């Protein structure tokens, strides 16, 4: 199997879905001849034409709102938000509309659509090109939220998202776009089902729960602490909503200790929900406090290099937190 990058996995997924189903189309800023500012849609405009790879006006709420309308009509839009930081103008459309249409119409109408957005820090993007925004959406019934951390999952999850009959947000760890490589079968790729976490490393001393770029660092950190004899079990959530609660509960049953890692701000981040579930449903399995390692509570990742490093959780900080918890 050939090794490809995470972003190439995404590109292949879109290419294959465009070829498979003529209702599928892409819409967003600079997705056409430019191929997207990260080149995720490179070549697709040339292959499928301006009718199916549409350069939108510079206006996120209408990218999503028009996508919803098209989905109501029976199309399968893939909406690109250029950076997750720019998704806020579309929140009314996502939260008040896309998420609620199925319920509010008693199932008469559904919104099969995908919203893709690069997210996360560590790339010198400063406050507005580094944000993690997944938490907001994980709180909203009616949405699904997917964050891949490998090329294989990126391709397989995005394909599943396109075929899903609900609004699905796919947040892509942009720092990993070219950094993370992995094997992906050639040709018509495999689907990765939404809603299933994956244990990417077995261990008995403590469980680490992560997703996206942080999952990548958690694996590195787990290797590092293994040298000190600490065996960490690593859970890659892959889909945050719906959450694979069973996978988490079983891991904690086994290890009794848990560290949750995300780069989004600590307070009220997605780690809080995981911790809350465990503090209720795994209460008797826990033999240490539930620990979270997350971005600090400042408005976003600062630009200047030393400040960015201060903000971002990385393999070293994660390893330190693992050691600390293992010693509890």
């Amino acid at each position: 199997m050939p090794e490809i990058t995470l972003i190439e996995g995404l590109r292949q997924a879109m290419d294959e879905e465009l070829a498979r189903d003529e209702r599928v189309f892409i819409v967003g800023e600079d997705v056409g001849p430019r191929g997207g500012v990260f080149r995720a849609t490179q070549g697709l405009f040339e292959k499928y034409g301006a009718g199916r790879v549409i350069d939108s006006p510079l206006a996120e709420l209408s990218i999503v709102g028009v996508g919803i309308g098209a989905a109501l009509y029976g199309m399968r839009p893939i909406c690109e938000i250029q950076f997750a930081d720019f998704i806020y103008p579309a929140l009314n459309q996502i939260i008040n509309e896309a998420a609620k249409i199925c319920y509010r119409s008693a199932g008469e109408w559904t919104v099969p659509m995908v919203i893709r957005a690069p997210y996360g820090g560590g790339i010198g993007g400063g406050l507005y090109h580094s944000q993690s925004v997944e938490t907001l959406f994980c709180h909203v019934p009616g949405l699904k939220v997917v964050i891949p951390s490998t090329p294989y999952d990126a391709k397989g999850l995005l394909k599943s998202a396109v075929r899903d009959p609900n609004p699905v947000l796919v947040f892509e760890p942009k720092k990993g776009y070219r950094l993370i490589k992995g094997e992906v079968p050639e040709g018509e790729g495999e689907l990765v089902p939404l809603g299933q976490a994956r244990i990417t490393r077995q261990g008995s001393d403590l469980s680490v729960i992560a997703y996206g770029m942080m999952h990548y660092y958690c694996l590195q950190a787990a290797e590092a602490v293994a040298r000190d004899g600490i065996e960490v079990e690593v859970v890659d959530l892959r889909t945050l909503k719906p959450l694979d609660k069973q996978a988490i509960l079983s891991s904690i049953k086994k290890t009794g200790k848990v560290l949750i890692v995300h780069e989004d701000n600590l307070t009220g981040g997605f780690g809080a929900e995981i911790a809350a579930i465990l503090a209720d449903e795994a209460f008797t399995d826990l033999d240490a406090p539930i620990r979270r390692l997350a971005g600090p509570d400042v408005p976003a990742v600062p630009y200047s290099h030393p400040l960015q490093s201060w903000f971002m959780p990385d393999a070293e900080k994660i390893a330190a937190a693992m050691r600390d918890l293992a010693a509890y």
Partner: protein
Amino acid sequence: MATTVEEHSTSLRKDDLIEMYWTMLLARRLDERAWVLHRQGRIAFHISGIGHEAAQVGAAFALRRGVDWVVPYYRDLAMILSLGLTPREFALSIMGKKGDPSSGGRQMPSHWSLRRANVVSHSAPVATQTTHAVGIALGIKMTGDDAVAITSIGEGSTAQGEWYEGVNWAAIHHLPVIFLVENNMYAISVRQEQQMAVRHVADKAAGLGLPGVSVDGMDILKVHEAVSEAASRARAGEGPTLVEAKVYRLTPHSSDDDDRSYRSREEVAEWRARDPLDRFAAQLLDQRHLAPEAVAEMDARARQEVDEAIQFAESALYPEVSEGAYPVYAEDIPHA
């Protein structure tokens, strides 16, 4: 002056005219009854379309009903009746009963959806529907289907960026969509002059690069003509049109409102004298499309249909409590 039926250029037959009048009348009687039910404490909320009926029915009859797509707003009772909503269904919805076709009792009344008639579910946050209509029109264009989308909105809500973005997109891509603005001069208490610095909503079209027309929305034939023209343009691939219908809301904003704090009784009385229902009746009588007895008979029939619908809904069941939990996702629909 009101358009005479003869002057009116489109091909409305006598039957159409009578059906249009009937629909306005039925909407009016249902709407009035809802106000009574609210005062009696038998329903919790009502938002009214009284004064807007000519604009709504005129627009609806310019569509190929069941073919074209409609993304309405909360004042559009008369429009949705034109498209096939039954009085019983309306009655179920105002009581939050099972069988309400818009939402099975989940949404407030007058938040329409009628799948069988291509009436798309809309919400309360104003102007979100605009981009949906544009997306539908995009879908129509992509599939090459022979349909047109129309979406309605109040003049105040055109202050929302959402509205601007939708209209802009449609103008750029020449999409088959009609933007109908029911301009009743008020957004709850706030007058048009506080919502925009142009005289007519139709003036906004110039800045967006699409045609805009402003018509007397109390004149059903004028509205019918303007929307028919817009629909022809859309079908001919000539893109979107903005149609402004100048109307007046003859009631408070909703059953929660008291309009005395923001407009004079004289102003309301003045507009009441221009009631679009009376006006259309006068036109039809004048042109001898209807005899006075027929008008009276239709009114009696409308009242009876309303009585029957309300009775039906009052004895209907509420949704079961277990229904509250779904369908959050499309996967839950089989259970619904």
